[in-house]
């Protein structure tokens, strides 16, 4: 029954959307109704699927690289005070730069293919993953560390057996955020310069006043993101009670 509320809410939103279109009589190249969008989606399903696969590939590779880099950075920061002093300010500084501004540069450096989009996704998720996991690693319950000290523990094993497992729920939160941001990163990359991917499809259909197709691509991206989030959430909830 947990599925019912979101489905009901979606239906309600669709009805409101259709009502706005019908009541205002707005032209379909400005705002197509949900029916038209679904029709456009069905007619172009193979094209959309092809582009969606490209975007999905960028997202997944971006997630894998971004999370790996984020985890490695957090571990490095958590274990070395020198690393914290040196890297933390730079990390925060780079986060204040708008990644959108970097997108054209990435295309210039890495070309119009897959890698400039992957780099974009990596850039956008690197910080939330690093920051969430690092926070978790620094917030180990002090009692555990007291106990470890009286046991003459080796810091490396304390990290592995206590600090990392205690921080896994925080890492889970970071990875769930990454699942939301990574699609945005990939699509920004596609907007700036690409011939394939949902972002590219949106730009193309917008340029040809095929608003219904643009909406169809956008909805596909939305559905893709939700599915990705649900899968990642399911996986990361298990991190909390994993055995080491």
């Amino acid at each position, binding site marked *: 029954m947990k599925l019912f509320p979101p489905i009901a809410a979606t239906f309600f939103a669709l009805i409101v959307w259709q009502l706005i279109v019908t009541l205002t009589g707005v032209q379909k190249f400005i705002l197509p109704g949900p029916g038209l969008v679904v029709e456009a989606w069905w007619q172009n399903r193979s094209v959309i699927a092809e582009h969606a696969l490209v975007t999905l590939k960028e997202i997944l590779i971006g997630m894998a690289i971004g999370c790996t880099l984020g985890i490695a950075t957090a571990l490095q920061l958590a274990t070395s005070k020198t690393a914290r002093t040196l890297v933390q300010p730079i990390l925060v500084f780079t986060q204040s730069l708008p990644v959108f501004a970097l997108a054209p540069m990435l295309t210039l450096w890495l070309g119009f293919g897959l890698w400039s989009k992957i780099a974009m996704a990596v850039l956008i998720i690197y910080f939330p993953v690093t920051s969430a996991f690092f926070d978790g690693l620094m917030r180990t319950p002090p*009692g555990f560390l007291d106990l470890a000290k009286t*046991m003459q523990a080796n810091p490396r*094993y304390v990290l592995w057996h206590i600090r990392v497992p205690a921080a896994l729920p925080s890492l889970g939160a970071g990875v769930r955020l990454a699942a939301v941001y990574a699609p945005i990163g990939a699509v920004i990359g596609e907007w700036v310069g690409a011939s394939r991917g949902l972002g590219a499809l949106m730009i193309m259909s917008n340029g040809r006043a095929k608003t219904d197709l643009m909406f169809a691509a956008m909805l596909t991206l939305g559905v893709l993101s939700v599915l990705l989030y649900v899968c990642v959430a399911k996986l990361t909830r298990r991190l909390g009670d994993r055995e080491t």
Partner: protein
Amino acid sequence: MSDAPGVTFQGEATIGGKALFAPLSLTLDAGRWTCLLGGSGVGKTTVLRLLAELPTGANFNGTIQATDTHAVADRVAYMAQSDLLLPWATVEKNIALGARLRGQAADTDRLEQLLERCGLHDHVGKRPAELSGGQRQRVALARTLMEDKPIILLDEPFSALDAQTRVAMQDLAAELLEGRTVLVVTHDPGEAARLGHAIHVMTPLGLTPCVPPAAPVPRAVDAIETLTCQSNLLRLLMEKSA
């Protein structure tokens, strides 16, 4: 386990320039239970943490010595009010935690023996969340014993348990820790009266030694001497804190 040494603690502690406790001198007799009884905030936990060289936030000015002149802090096992069990690890892994944190293999014979003596055989593969408060504290006790250290520091180890479980845990601890030098920090006069070979009441004015009952520990909860000692301790706590 090597022979348990006696320990002497002498000194004062300040926090931010204010005295946490006045100069005091505490002796833990070798192989005996010493109870440090006091209300909240008198610094009794700080004394225990200083012995273990755990962070206290206080400035300590004094000395801590073992009668055999070896260092104290690396010969202590520590047990707190919170059981400090790792929620993601099984009972077995929690008990053997020390070895894993040192990168050593756990002594499986000793582990088996402790599981048996602490009545934990049926719970080996369970996680802490599946255990009752008393069972969790038994795991914590087994973990403390697994370390096989001559000096045992107990910081209100049983105060979160219900009355009958607490008594059972006191009996078990007294039996299993026999022959070790034990310091129990507690705010429960009844616990001190049952377990202490030596009892010290700690108040802002300093330490007051009290004569424990003559019976061997653990003393019967309903023995008249235990109850008299308990009420004397309580009266002393109230007088000294007033």
